[in-house]
């Protein structure tokens, strides 16, 4: 039910990234470019079709200052409701778990409970508090997460964590749905004369008109 980081990057090519010129330089690494971050991506059996990776994890070695922006759609998915609640009470986080295949939206209390159980299981494996774990989902609206498949995959996902570019690339592929390319980028810049790094990954191809707050 899982694949290595080098295998996952073969599924779809990386997107061209258009950065304007400025006092920064593009560097390899995506979400793992910054100090303290690790990532992993693998196939956990959540997708309805194919064997493209569908589970991603990003972790931080220390308590990271956290922020979030979320859809203002009234029909908000369970992970959105969960993360908003957590960020309202906590200023830091240590991990973000992401699944592709099921959006876990319009799934009611059962969907929310799935989020809590997924978070709780991952927190135990990572030896951190549940409120330090955030979660994102994407896929078909109205379907709950394939929780058993997800829970079975978590140990391997945690063991696959890596601070390498391959780890970041695997995670960037694992969060895609109808995307034809994976989206990942990192830059190095200076803040007050010290080198800092900013990295990121994203997914999206359709149902795209964000209005996040």
């Amino acid at each position, binding site marked *: 039910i899982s694949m290595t980081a080098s295998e996952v990057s073969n599924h779809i090519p990386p997107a061209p*990234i258009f950065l304007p010129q400025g006092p920064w330089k593009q560097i390899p690494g995506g979400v793992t470019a910054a100090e303290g971050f690790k990532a992993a991506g693998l196939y956990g059996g959540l997708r309805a079709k194919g064997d493209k990776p569908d589970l991603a994890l990003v972790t931080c070695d220390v308590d990271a200052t956290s922020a979030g922006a979320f859809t203002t759609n009234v029909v908000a998915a369970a992970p959105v409701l969960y993360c908003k609640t957590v960020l309202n009470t906590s200023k830091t986080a240590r991990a973000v778990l992401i699944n592709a295949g099921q959006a876990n939206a319009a799934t009611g209390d059962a969907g929310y409970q799935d989020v809590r159980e997924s978070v709780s299981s991952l927190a135990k494996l990572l030896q951190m508090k549940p409120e330090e774990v955030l979660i994102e989902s994407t896929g078909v609206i109205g379907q709950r997460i394939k929780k058993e498949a997800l829970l079975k995959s978590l140990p391997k996902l945690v063991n696959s964590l890596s601070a390498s570019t391959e780890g970041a690339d695997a*995670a960037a592929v694992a969060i895609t749905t109808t995307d034809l390319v994976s989206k990942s980028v990192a830059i190095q810049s200076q803040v007050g004369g010290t080198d800092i790094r900013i990295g990121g990954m994203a997914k999206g191809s*359709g149902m795209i008109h*964000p209005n996040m707050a």
Partner: protein
Amino acid sequence: TMLGVITTDAMVSSDVWRKMVQVAVNRSFNQITVDGDTSTNDTVIALASGLSRSTKISSYNSNEAVQLQAGLDVVMQGLAKSIAWDGEGATCLIEVTVTGADSEPEAAKIARSVASSSLVKAAVYGRDPNWGRIAAAAGYAGISFDQTKLRVLLGDILLMDGGEPQLFDRGAASDYLKKAGEIHGTVAINVSVGDGPGRGQAWGCDLSYDYVKINAEYTT
């Protein structure tokens, strides 16, 4: 749905980080559109480890905050543009830049109105330099401006100035769109609405037959 995870090793206080992330989201992900549909799951999570040993940023108005904001903006815009570039069925990225508005939010709203227009998107796919659709989409954005100051360029080709259509080489303008589509490149639409300091950008993609095919076959 769009999802994003952003990481940095800069050291920043919670209040400042949360403000920076919302500002960057407003300048990037909230300025893209593919099909006008807002998802139930759109999420961006941003984490700052502080392990770079940079000076802790505690004031949003400090020079260090300005530097970090610029970096955050560029990373999120890079990712946001790649989402629009990868829009379902798209053959090109559309980058709309609006200048001359009274403020950045007003310019941004006009830019997104143009980028969101189904008729503008279909015209780009049809390689039709349709200045009328661009002007109309700017006009219904909900931002008041003097239409006699409206200026529209497609790439470097001036289509409209002083609120009036200009004589232009229609073949060259159509070729500009065609070439962008052939290489999955970028179509630049520049709109000026006055003399104000407000500048904003939005990104979208053209609307092809494939978009309908993909979404007619993908069920909820």
